[in-house]
């Protein structure tokens, strides 16, 4: 049984159909990159996995349980699925430590001491043990994004979604965030990422999923996808990057 199973997912924004029947299985421990041109539906697909976008048709199964459209279903789903955003979205009125501690306390009802232990561990893991008392606006973009990753990890999700996590960063800050993601992948965390960092995707991922016009156009192991694209669309996408 796969950790996440998407079956025949359809999603429209008004008249515009952005997902036209997506089937995707995510296995425990797998690292998957969604690639494709902007507007191909990859971010929308990622956002359906944790219920930030409601779907018009299809089914989502997480850990063997079907996700319905009741609010409680979505909340349960989100306990299993963490997310990191392009724009970090840290809570500006809390310190780094509080950002990471908040949800375990509020949602999982952990004690303050327990939440603090976990938060300190996670912040140390992303290399920010010395920035815990800083507010988001006192941190660089790369540091903010690493706090966001620690914040998601503190909820102990079974899969982590990364939506273009380096796209809003200055070039010199990209690597510190990628290093953290790489470390997570090596530790066996299940990851699904939308990314434009092709070299990184190639090195770290088990599977690349190429999206084109709302469909999964082609997918496979990174070396195959890059070396032998089977469709002209992927060939031109890969070629355009070279």
């Amino acid at each position, binding site marked *: 049984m796969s950790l996440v199973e998407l079956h025949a997912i359809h999603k429209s924004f008004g008249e515009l159909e952005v997902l036209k029947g997506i089937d995707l299985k995510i296995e425990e421990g797998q690292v998957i990159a969604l690639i494709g041109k902007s507007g191909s539906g990859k971010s929308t697909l990622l956002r359906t996995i944790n219920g*930030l976008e409601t779907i018009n048709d299809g089914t989502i199964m997480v850990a063997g349980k079907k996700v319905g459209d009741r*609010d409680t279903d979505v909340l349960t789903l989100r306990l299993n699925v*963490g997310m990191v955003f392009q724009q970090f979205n*840290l809570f500006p*009125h809390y310190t780094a430590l509080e950002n990471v501690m908040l949800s375990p306390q509020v*949602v999982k009802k952990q004690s303050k001491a327990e939440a603090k232990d976990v938060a300190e561990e996670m912040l140390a893991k992303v290399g920010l043990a010395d920035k815990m008392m800083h507010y988001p606006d006192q941190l660089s973009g790369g540091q903010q994004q690493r706090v*966001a990753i620690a*914040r998601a990890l503190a909820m102990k999700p079974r899969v982590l979604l990364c939506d273009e996590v380096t796209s809003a960063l200055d070039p010199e800050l990209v690597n510190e965030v990628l290093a953290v993601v790489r470390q997570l992948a090596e530790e066996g965390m299940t990851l699904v990422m939308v990314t434009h960092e092709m070299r990184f995707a190639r090195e770290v991922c088990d599977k690349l999923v190429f999206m084109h016009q709302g469909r999964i156009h082609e997918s496979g192991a990174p070396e195959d996808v890059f070396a032998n694209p089977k469709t002209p669309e992927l060939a031109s996408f890969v070629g355009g990057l070279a």
Partner: protein
Amino acid sequence: MSEFSLWDIVYNLLLAARWTVLLSLTAFVLGGIVGLLLLMVRTAGNPWAMRLVRGYVELFQGTPLLMQLFIVFFGLPLIGIDVSPWIAAMLGLTLFTSAFLTEIWRGCVESIGLGQWEASASLGMNFRQQMRYIILPQALRIAVPPTVGFSVQVVKGTAVASIIGFVELTKAGTMITNATYAPFTVYGCVAVMYFLICFPLSLYARHLEGKLRHVAR
């Protein structure tokens, strides 16, 4: 007929000004509580409830405060509820205040970026938790200056209560004028007193605005 000194006038106005302050405070506190409840309903997303709140806000923003007081004061007795001028004034101003505060605060809540909602949602928080820990603390900072600014409108709004016979500052002014035949002196004093209540509030609102420019993260 006895002579009124300026001090007699000021002293009697000061006594009445207590009621202006009390009415303002009551309307502001009760209006704030009702406004907060309406805000929660307005942002929670049920379309019918949202429409209802919007209608409520439009109703009170689109009619003069005086008419609202008249309707409370003369309308409630028609359905068998007798209200004193104090109750009518308090009720009318509370409704008026709640409508405006809901609208002011809604703007503040909506100025909090979608990213904050999405980040907190993806951490598993429900609506109530999002509001309490993420949205309201941030919205509150933005809301303080316009809220304090609006309190000035409430203070001045209490003057209208004089027309339904509630003895506050303005009504006291009218009564003293009727006894002294010195309307300019009396109303001059009334105006000064309103100013002394309102001006510090305005100053404070401006001060908070300056301070918040630094805090805005």
